[in-house]
């Protein structure tokens, strides 16, 4: 779909309006509840452990460029850096995408400022490694082995390199918290990390950590939209089960003639 069809236009505008409306309501003081997310509670535990052990913390924002997923990762990392700076623990952040470097540097130095420890920030701690997937993974693995971090936080878009980083951190006994929207990497993180934030918990992370009304409102807005989607899916399911296709598929743009190629009936039996 290169241009919006009418149903897509209406539905996207409605979804956006619901989210923005909830954000504004929250900014005006509406009280909102958020459940406990164990993986995010573990961030304090991991920072505390690094402080006790007197070793550093590694933050990685994954392999994404300047996109929504990576900016969210950066937001989470900023919060962790701020907590670490308060206790005087060193934080290092290797960067994959060069364009992200100045943004990450600014974000982490602001986190140090906020914690009143601007003197402790060194621009060398936020460093560009490589925009080659496995060169980056090798670089991060090397940093983990040399610095023997007490805690590692892996947030963002990850591909096959996720296990290289997580297993190396496991080898040095680091406590690990990971979070990614890349569903294919979740199993690897679960096998190697102590805490994993999955699915849309990832987008709830900043709201949970900061409790800012804007972020809480955005999260509640998302949940309302998801409830709407779920109700629509259930309705469609029930109507189809009852052989009452009252609702035409609103989202079909063009039929794919080749779609019938993949049919279970024709499968490889």
């Amino acid at each position, binding site marked *: 779909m290169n241009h919006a069809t009418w149903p897509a236009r209406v539905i996207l505008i409605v*979804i956006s309006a619901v989210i923005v409306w909830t954000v504004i309501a929250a900014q005006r003081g509406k009280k909102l509840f958020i459940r406990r997310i164990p993986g995010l509670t573990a961030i304090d535990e991991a920072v505390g452990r690094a402080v006790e052990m007197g070793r550093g913390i590694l933050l990685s924002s994954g392999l994404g460029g300047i996109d929504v997923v990576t*900016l969210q990762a950066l937001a989470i990392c900023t919060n962790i850096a701020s907590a670490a700076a308060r206790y005087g623990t060193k934080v290092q952040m290797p960067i994959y995408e060069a364009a992200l470097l100045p943004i990450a540097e600014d974000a982490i130095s602001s986190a140090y400022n906020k914690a009143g420890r601007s003197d402790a920030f060194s621009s060398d701690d936020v460093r560009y490694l490589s925009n080659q997937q496995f060169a980056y993974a090798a670089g991060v693995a090397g940093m983990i082995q040399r610095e023997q971090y007490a805690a590692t936080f892996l947030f963002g878009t990850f591909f096959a390199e996720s296990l290289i980083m997580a297993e190396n951190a496991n080898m040095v006994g680091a406590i690990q918290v990971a979070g990614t929207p890349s569903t294919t990497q979740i199993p690897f993180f679960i096998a190697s990390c102590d805490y994993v934030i999955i*699915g849309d918990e*990832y987008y709830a992370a900043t709201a949970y950590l900061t409790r800012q*009304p804007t972020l809480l409102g955005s999260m509640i807005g*998302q949940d309302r*939209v998801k409830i709407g989607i779920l109700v629509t899916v259930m309705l469609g399911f029930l109507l189809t089960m009852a052989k009452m296709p009252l609702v035409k598929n609103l989202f079909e743009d063009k039929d794919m003639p080749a779609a019938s190629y993949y049919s279970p009936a024709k499968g490889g039996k």
Partner: protein
Amino acid sequence: MFQVQHGAALYTHLAGAAVVSVILFFALTLVPTKLRRPLIMAVTFAAGLFYALEFFWPVSGPESDQKNFLTSYIKPFSDITTVLQSFALGLGVYSLVSIHMRKVARTQSGWAYSLVLIVSMIVMVIAHIGKEYIKSPWVHQLNEFAYSGLMKSLDATMFSIIAFYIVSAAYRAFRIRSTEATILLVSAGIIMLGQVAIGQAITNAIPNEGLTANLRVENMANWILKKVNSPAIMAIDFGLGVGGLATALRLWLSLERGSYFEEEL
């Protein structure tokens, strides 16, 4: 305005762009502190608005060439994005080289590795860019050695290490500690067997037709992937899609501010 230029016109355009950039740069430094944030918000909004409008604005024209008044500007916008991001590569290289140069200059621990990094980087740049412009065979041989001989092999080696880590992670983490863990382990076993010929051979004796076909390991694996795994991924994707949209809206409309969401607007 966005046409490809050649010869004198190209240099005139380049000089014009440089002059405009310098004027813009100085103009931005003169903006009062109070106005900086609204300016950033306006630029962010305008940049996002282009893509939003291009997507939402009704299109016209023949079915094979449907466009609106913004569609033809997509390509120049794509080029601008690419150019802006390419400049950032210089920042990355500067960061990497400066850290390692300092390490070498101060002979800090591990300085020799830093030296290897800097030398490798220079050799790779000479070899890979040089092969395009220098006819000499030694540049091609150097490129062959550095790119195909070293870099490709090192890259493949790093990827293959994952296999070893999968073995150690599976051995350590796949334990029957609860009912859920047992279900996970049994499904993983079926998938692993169903994906390879030797696993499939275990149930080869079972006829692949009728109800008994469901007992064949590859069909069980396929069923788990299609009927259990796919819906779970779709459900996660719904949440992620909405989450992504919400974050994008917050950024686009500048509903939050500070260095990455630290302070309220």
